[in-house]
């Protein structure tokens, strides 16, 4: 049993290694090899998950090999599979299989078909690596690899300037977060014990860090700094404020990529990291509080921007930011289980929403919701799937989103009233922007001239499966995986919160829906007084402008200054002047070489006289 765990990781890697060698003429195999790879990983994961589904038993599997052994440092590669990892693996490989299969048709005529599936397989490998990592440095390794596959897939259509820029932006923004993450790892490593017995292993880290914290009150501050630095990595990967700017741009990638990587799994890796290291975060209440506020703020901040987006994928991207904010906030409020639960259900319904949107984009070749309309009549199945996803995202009973979101709201209600209020507003805003989107996309007169029809089963099957999971995922017992003794028990339903959330959701969805049914003229006149707010939202609160400013007017001039310094001071000033100085002295000294023996002799003898004088009077001693 323990040996087959490695194969969860290796099957996608094998697919990745095979795909480049498939000839272009038979490229259809590339897609199937990728699908089979991740499907096998899914099957093995199911094998590990069965005891929990059957009897609620908890097992952990642990294994490692030594990778680098140097006195003072021991780095291992290994896996650590517990119920948390299994839940995450189910999401990654399960949703992954559906999206790989979906891509078979979606990317069928793409020029970079092979490259696409190679990238997806590389992503699956790296993501699984994050989930099963047994130590922090190994997690960091796969964390970076995930960043690479994200870069490659966002820039899949590299000939488009926007896509090429977006890939670069995503990678670099993440790098800034990982800068903090790596320093955090180094700090934790130092905290974990005296030189020679340090560790980054998750199994040992907890005990060694708790004893570190208990040994001196000053150490608690040190740990807070370390945990916040680690959280920097989460800021990048899970796109929390202020490093969220890359995620909306990442929508330049193919839609299945947005569904899998930039909605369901990779961006959730940060949340997974928080849950994985939750027992350490618990040692630092200050860090947790800051995390909760950042999450809560991101949730609200992103939801407001989703209201004005015209591109359906960007609406969903901001929605992802907002939901990730919920998850981070839940963990910050002290419950990793709630955060992970929302991660799971969110993976289902957000993947469904993206795939549904992808199906519509594929058919209409449009992404602007103002250019759609009336899709429900022509593509009823896809539209139904999208509506189910919307239903779950807003959190209406009995969809899966209801269960997880309710737990978050109940948690905020009991822990922090300010964050509860902001979360409640976010519920309303979520319903509002989704109501607006479905109103514009599915209803009213169609603005699409193309003849539309439903896609083939390769696209419909994943939609069907994800619809079932989104609708009924709350009853499948995923929360069982989270009854780990290390995590807080999830609180039961809170009827006050449920009623409030449902009312807010209904209010939001109706106002969003009917506001876009009242006709353009009325809408414009209603919106007129708020045009300044609209402007701020469209400019993304000037966040992109701020970063652009920093790059264009601070960093680039600084680089130019150093370049100038190099050219004029170091090369021209110091080095070349030293060279001309040498030439100049040469010109003077060559006059000494007169070629006349008399001159040489007189100089020589005066030298001898001086030497004797110096030796005689002891000046050389």
């Amino acid at each position: 049993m323990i040996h087959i765990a490695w194969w969860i990781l290796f099957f996608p890697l094998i697919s990745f290694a095979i795909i480049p060698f498939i000839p272009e003429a038979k490229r259809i195999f590339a897609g199937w090899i990728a699908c089979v790879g991740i499907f096998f990983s899914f099957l093995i994961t199911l094998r590990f998950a069965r005891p929990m589904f059957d009897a609620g038993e908890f097992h952990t599997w642990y294994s490692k090999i030594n990778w680098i052994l140097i006195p003072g440092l021991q780095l291992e590669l290994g896996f650590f599979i517990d119920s948390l990892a299994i839940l995450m693996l189910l999401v990654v490989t399960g949703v992954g299989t559906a999206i790989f299969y979906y891509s078979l048709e979606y990317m069928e005529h793409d020029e970079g078909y092979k490259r696409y599936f190679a990238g997806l397989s590389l992503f699956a490998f790296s993501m699984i690596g994050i989930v099963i990592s047994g130590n922090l440095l190994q997690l960091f390794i796969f964390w970076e690899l995930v960043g690479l596959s994200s870069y490659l897939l966002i820039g899949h259509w590299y000939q488009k300037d926007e896509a090429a820029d977006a890939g670069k932006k995503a990678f670099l923004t993440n790098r800034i977060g990982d800068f903090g993450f790596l320093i955090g790892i180094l700090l934790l490593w130092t905290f974990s014990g005296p030189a020679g017995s340090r560790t980054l292993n998750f199994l040992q880290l907890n005990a060694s860090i708790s004893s570190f914290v208990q040994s001196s009150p000053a150490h608690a501050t040190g740990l807070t700094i370390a945990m916040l630095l680690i959280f920097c990595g989460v800021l990048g990967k899970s796109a929390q404020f202020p490093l969220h700017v890359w995620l909306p741009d990442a929508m330049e990638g193919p839609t299945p990529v947005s569904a899998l990587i930039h909605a369901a799994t990779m961006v959730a890796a940060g949340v997974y990291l928080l849950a994985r290291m939750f027992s350490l975060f618990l040692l630092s209440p200050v860090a947790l509080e800051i995390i909760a506020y950042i999450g809560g703020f991101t949730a609200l901040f992103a939801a407001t921007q989703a209201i004005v987006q015209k591109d359906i994928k960007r609406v969903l991207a901001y929605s992802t930011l907002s939901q990730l904010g919920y998850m981070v906030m839940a963990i910050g409020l002290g419950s990793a289980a709630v955060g992970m639960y929302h991660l799971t259900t969110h993976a289902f319904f957000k993947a469904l929403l993206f795939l549904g949107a992808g199906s519509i984009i594929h058919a209409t070749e449009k992404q602007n919701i103002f250019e759609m309309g009336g899709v429900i009549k022509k593509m009823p199945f896809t539209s139904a799937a999208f509506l189910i996803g919307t239903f779950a995202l807003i959190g209406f009973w009995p969809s899966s989103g209801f269960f997880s979101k309710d737990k978050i709201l109940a948690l905020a209600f009991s822990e922090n009233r300010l964050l509860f209020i902001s979360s409640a507003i976010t519920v309303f805003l979520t319903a509002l922007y989704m109501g607006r989107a479905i109103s514009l996309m599915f209803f009213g007169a169609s603005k699409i001239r193309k003849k539309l029809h439903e896609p083939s089963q390769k696209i419909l099957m994943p939609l069907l499966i994800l619809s079932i999971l989104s609708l009924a995922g709350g009853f499948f017992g995923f929360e069982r995986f989270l009854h780990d003794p290390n995590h807080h028990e999830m609180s039961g339903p809170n009827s006050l919160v449920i009623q409030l959330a449902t009312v807010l959701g209904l209010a939001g969805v109706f106002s969003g829906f009917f506001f876009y049914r009242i006709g353009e003229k009325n809408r414009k006149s209603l919106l007129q007084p708020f045009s300044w707010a609209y402007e701020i939202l469209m400019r993304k609160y000037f966040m992109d402008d701020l970063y652009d400013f920093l790059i264009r007017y601070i960093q680039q001039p600084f680089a130019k200054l150093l370049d100038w310094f190099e050219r004029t001071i170091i090369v021209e000033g110091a080095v070349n002047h030293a060279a001309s100085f040498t030439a100049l002295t040469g010109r003077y000294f060559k006059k000494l070489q007169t070629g006349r023996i008399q001159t040489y002799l007189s100089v020589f003898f005066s030298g001898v006289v001086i030497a004797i004088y110096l030796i005689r009077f002891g000046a050389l001693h």
Partner: protein
Amino acid sequence: MLTSHSLLPYLVLIPLMASAFILVVPSERISAIRKIAIGATFLTLILAFFFLFSYQPSGSPYQFTIQIPWVRSFGISYHAGLDGIGVVMVLLHAILSFTGALVSRSIKQDVKLYFIFYLILVASIFGVFTSLDLFFLYLFYEMSVIPLYPMIGIWGSQNREYASMKLTLYISLGAVIALVGLLALYFASGLQTFDLEALSQQAQNQPFSVYFQMWCAPLLIFGFGVIASLWPFHSWSPIGYAAAPTAVSMLHAGVLKKLGIFLIIRIVIPLLPEGAKFWLPITAVLCIVNILYGAWAAMAQKDMKFVIGFASVSHMGYAFLGLACLNQMGLTATVFFMFAHGIMAALCFALIGFIYDQTHTRMIPDLGGLAKQLPFITVCFVIAAFASSGLPGFANFVSEILIFFSAWEHYPVQTILAIFGIVITATYMLRMIRNVFFGPPNPNWAYLKDAKGLAGKLPYGFLVAVLLIFGVWPSLLLNIIRPTTEALIESRAAVLAQYP
């Protein structure tokens, strides 16, 4: 002790003999000349792998030794041998010599002369890595400078006279400063020998006085530091690389630059431990200037070769940082870093050379959208860029992370700044990739041809494979480096213990 069965001298002899052989081949027989050069470097590559696999990590520190007395009165003998560090550096040099010979296909002018010089360059660098006698070591070192000057001057590109002059003068300057230090060692030891083993034995039994170490160590550290482009003695490096022909840039950035650090490890640390203890923390400050200054300067460049040139200035800072830790982890990491960086830098120069041969420009704003015509080259360049910015999976990541782990203890502030350096590295590398390869295809470059066939792809693919193999399985090299650095640190501790 006359051991005649060592294969080690052949590393020097094979390229030299091939060079002499090319001398008698008529200069029109270009393909024969190329085959001789490629064949000779391939043989040294096989030898290098032989040394890698037959080196016994648990055996004596220097293996495959050979000693032939030469000038007895001065105590000069041809004494060659390899320790774990030498094995790794020889492997690096052999890999780059071979790939360098392969990419020299693009040389069309005076092919015969070019390869004669090239093989002398290759042989003399092997000589430096294998010599255990300071006299021969210095001799081989100076010998490597001789072919460099004409190679840049004749086959170089823009600004080549200025660049070759500057590079040669600079390196000679560094060498002369170091020579003063070496001669001081010779006289101060009173042993009348240039033999490194004898000298380090002496240093353990009867260490050099602290006063002597204090002034001798900086001569060697900064003299060799010039060669390793320690800030502010780096300015020869970007200009020199930009002007040099592809294979010379590869060997220079990949191997020659590492000589400085290699020699500091081999000579300064065991012989002058007190001096190293005092002076290396100063280089630990300068190296951060290397890292950040080089990286920001790279960001402002428009010529691809200048970007990589400044990048290599920046990267050498990491090697100095690892060195300055003066512990086993740091030294091991530094040696591994030199290997990884050598391969990566050479790969970058090889790829830029490939593009330049067809486009005749290296200016980033002129290029763009090349990925469509050059998919293979693009993939290799993306790999090189990510390796350069320390992405896991490549050898560079392993070495950098080891340097961070060991430096963190001694120089926390520098470590944080050094880690920030990899953020900047990623920025300029990805920006270059974005502007050269991605974006809308440029009709001007529609005629470009990608690397075709096994022979065309081999040099680039080989370097990529090396980066990947040692990135996934670093222990292959680390286990060979480790005993040597352990012995170094132990002997250093033994010497230091003799001081009150």
